[in-house]
């Protein structure tokens, strides 16, 4: 299994859609074959179409607000000593998280395909909120599938979705979290694929959805590459790019431009959700060595039991609370290009406390997992090491959890 150079990772799959011969694919019911095929053809056409690219770039700039800033966290760095800690503040994007890139692109594709309805899944509520925003912006009717447990714990994002005119469909089956929301959304699409477009909220699901999402979030690293050259005159010699990984859409977007670099030069570190310290449950299939399985139309490392039943997960962060992970991250793990680890709920909360104490930054619980790793390794590293954390979401949505766990927000 080997990575190719000069080809975007999203395109390094075989004719059946597998990365490294075993991750990804399209394990879908017959009914979805045609709509998936149509979408694949359309996307293939659009990404080569100059007008479409122009449109995308226009909305990325004027609607999403690209580029998001790249800042040094001076106080945090000097407090910890060791490496310099920087942040790519993706949470500045319209709506407050990276999910807006994928949502905007899906809305544009939906329009191009002449469909009037768009549906999507959401965990933390950001994917749903952004899809509802994009739907409103482009005049589409929108339905969001969300686990009942997540609706309760991410209320601010639900309020936003409703304000944008989207219908939230609560999902009561299974664990009532993201995994069930994705299943229910796919079921809805099976029944309505003739007039409805589906947006999968991360780099997961059947092959084409991994590709569209990765293609959209890649904007993050395109910006970062320019910003790095501007800040340091050239790409520094020792960089570590740290990103939280749930499905893995922000991590892929943060890394895509840097995958061809040597890992001694630019190390890629993915941080999964380790769950509560004392719990056996987690949402860390990569770093806790889950077996390969098929979930939501793709093969990836999946938290599951020996029979193949998908396991319950547990994490303080609804956005990372998912038993599977993107096939492209499985590929990056097996080729050893990226290193994956996890942070517990407690570590993420502590990281949140520390970052907000020293910096004018308010990272949500998802990137707080990435900050936990940065805080852990920074003191041991040299001053010329540049740690960059993708602060991919804003903590407004976590208001209730943070109040409950830290006594304040």
């Amino acid at each position, binding site marked *: 299994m080997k990575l190719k150079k000069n080809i975007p990772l999203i395109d390094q799959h075989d004719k*059946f859609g597998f990365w490294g011969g075993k991750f990804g*694919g*399209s*394990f*879908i*019911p*017959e*009914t*979805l*074959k*045609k*709509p998936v095929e149509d979408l694949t053809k359309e996307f293939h056409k659009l990404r080569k179409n100059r007008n479409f690219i122009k449109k995308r770039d226009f909305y990325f700039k004027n609607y999403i607000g690209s580029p998001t800033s790249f800042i040094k966290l001076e106080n945090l760095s000097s407090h910890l000593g060791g490496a310099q800690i920087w942040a790519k503040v993706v949470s500045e994007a319209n709506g407050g998280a990276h999910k807006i890139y994928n949502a905007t692109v899906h809305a544009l594709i939906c329009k191009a395909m002449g469909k009037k309805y768009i549906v999507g899944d959401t965990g933390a509520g950001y994917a749903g909120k952004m899809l509802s925003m994009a739907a409103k912006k482009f005049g589409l009717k929108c339905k969001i599938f969300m686990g009942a447990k997540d609706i309760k714990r991410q209320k601010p994002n639900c309020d936003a979705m409703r304000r944008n005119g989207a219908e939230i469909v609560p999902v009561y*089956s*299974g664990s009532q979290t993201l*995994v069930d929301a994705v*299943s229910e959304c*796919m*079921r809805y699409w*099976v*029944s*309505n*694929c*003739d007039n409805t477009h589906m947006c999968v909220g991360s780099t997961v699901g059947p092959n084409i959805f991994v590709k569209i999402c990765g293609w959209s979030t890649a904007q993050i690293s395109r910006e970062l590459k320019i910003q790095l050259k501007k800040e340091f005159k050239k790409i520094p010699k020792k960089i570590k790019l740290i990103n939280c990984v749930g499905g893995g859409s922000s991590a892929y977007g943060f890394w895509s431009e840097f995958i061809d670099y040597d890992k001694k030069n630019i190390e890629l570190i993915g941080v999964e959700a380790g769950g509560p310290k004392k719990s056996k449950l987690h949402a860390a299939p990569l770093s806790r060595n889950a*077996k*390969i*399985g*098929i*979930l*939501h*139309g793709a093969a990836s490392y*999946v938290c*599951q039991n*020996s*029979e*193949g*039943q*998908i396991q319950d997960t547990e994490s303080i962060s609804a956005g990372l609370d998912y038993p599977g992970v993107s096939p492209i991250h499985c590929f990056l793990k097996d080729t050893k290009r990226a290193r994956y680890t996890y942070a517990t709920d407690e570590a993420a909360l502590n990281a949140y406390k520390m970052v907000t104490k020293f910096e004018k930054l308010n990272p949500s619980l998802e990137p707080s997992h990435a900050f936990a790793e940065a805080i852990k390794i920074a003191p041991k590293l040299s001053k010329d090491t540049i740690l960059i954390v993708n602060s991919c979401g804003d903590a407004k949505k976590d208001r209730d959890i943070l109040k409950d766990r830290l006594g304040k927000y």
Partner: protein
Amino acid sequence: MNNSLINQSFKKAKKENRPALLTYTVAGDNTKKKSLEILKSISKYADICELGFPHNTPIADGGQIQTSAYRAIKNGIKINDVFSIVSKFKKFRKDKPIILMGYYNMIYQYNENKFIKKCKKSKVDGLIVVDLPHPENKIFASKCKKNKINFIQLISPTTSNLRLKKIIKDSHDMIYYISMLSTTGGKLKVSPKRIIKEYQKIKKLNKSKNVVIGFGITEKTIKLLKKADGLVVGSAICKEITKSIKKRQNTVTNVTNVVKKLNNKIK
């Protein structure tokens, strides 16, 4: 596989001038013992019995079958129990075909070859794997054929003509036509006339294949689809199990009555 039990069942139904009746129940719903009893009892009125091996993330199933699947898993059903249910059933009625139906991850975790071997040993006649479509299923399907197990291809209203031809070419004795764009157990939103028209399109391409129609078929609608080679009823049966449990009634008797009625409607 000309003399397969599945083929024979269709021939028998054809002789009686009626479509074959296929039932779907979930193994282990609501217990291992009960699901075997139900299977034994309904086999008097059904021509082919489909038995689901339940998965907890079923992306193509509607509410009724999901409920049955979750109930069975909660009550501890394991893949090996499913095989033992089939073995026991086959000792009771070796002439009745059994088709196992489920999602690919369960087979993948069990190991494809081991799974097929186990199917053969417990005398499973056919397999339906919901999320392993054509052409991805080619290798697995040919492994099944080598072991005299029917791999059943699915066709849906969205299947293109080109795909249709390829799928039929690679199919075995039976083809499953999904009546409409829906998960299992949805309300029939397409007229039976249109469904039969689509069905005939498939039949025209190869008359020797037995084509069954499933999804959304109930006591009310089954008669209108009588022209088909076979008709599958699943959700309506699972619903009856749920209802009987709620009312604390005998699931075996109630479900058998439903199947008996279905059988009467297509005579």
